């Protein structure tokens, strides 16, 4: 049995509008004099929000079974987060290490 999303055309184009607004906000913040850490945090949150909208609405994930969603979240995002989480602190540390 295949699950079929019944998303309306209006929902798709509303999501498109939200994605554009988020992009414009990100571009605006790029010019704003924010502290670096706050800037990066806000950008990452906006980026992940856009990703969730595309995955949830356009790719119909919000209408799929939780098992499929978990397969993707664990397979992709958590692996990616581990990759970033393990690599970047090493990169920051390497400049502080002696020869």
């Amino acid at each position, binding site marked *: *049995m*295949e*699950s*079929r999303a019944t*998303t*309306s*055309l209006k929902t*798709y*184009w509303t*999501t*498109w509008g939200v*994605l*554009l607004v988020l*992009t414009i906000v*990100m*571009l605006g913040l*790029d010019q704003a004099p924010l502290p670096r850490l706050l*800037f*990066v945090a806000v*950008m*990452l949150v*906006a*980026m992940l929000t*856009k*990703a969730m909208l*595309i*995955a949830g*609405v*356009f*790719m*119909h994930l919000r209408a*799929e*079974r939780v*098992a*499929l969603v978990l*397969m*993707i979240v664990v*397979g*992709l995002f958590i*692996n*990616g987060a581990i*990759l*970033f989480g393990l*690599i*970047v602190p*090493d*990169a*920051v540390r*390497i*400049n502080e290490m002696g020869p």
Partner: protein
Amino acid sequence: MTDVTSSTIASSTALGRWDGGTCPFDAGWKKVLMWAFIITDGLLFAGFLGGYGYARAMSTVWPSQAEVFAIPFIAAMTFVLISSSATMASAVWAVENDRPQLARRFVWATTAGAVIFLGMQAVEWSNLIAEGVTLSGNPFGDPLFGAYFFVTTGFHGSHVLIGIIVLVTVSLRLGRSVTTTENVEMAGLYWHFVDLVWVFIFTLFYLV
């Protein structure tokens, strides 16, 4: 002999769905395998971006984005790609609502967006190469910048090119009424994945 009632009840519970004889994901094999492909392809880009994060974090002379990139131009590219994703979603809606000719127009609009995006990417690459950015060096700072930029955006661009081939094929098959709703949806999943990757590249390369 299995009791039909108890097997029906068992298949509707979380554990029962994995006992065999049912579809635990409630999706056809094409969708499950397309998602498996998306996961592996996504991990490819996660590797590139992870390596990029490492190189940038340990570098003391990483080029400033404002100095290297024309951000309004990149913003326009992002607008084109997001819009093409919306038209592809609309194509899937049209084909699910038995309107194949409307779906075909939406797929052609998506293809146009893809071609425009690829053309703009080519312009961006040409400008950077003219300014001296190569795989082994650049006049802006860390020599690794060019390698990470061209490899990551190059792989993304190759996915866009493959997407154009897929979209043209889907459109031609829609015109001849020889494709299914599921096939258009699978093409849509691929195209939205390409857009998803750009969301990460746009943020991590051009903004942060």
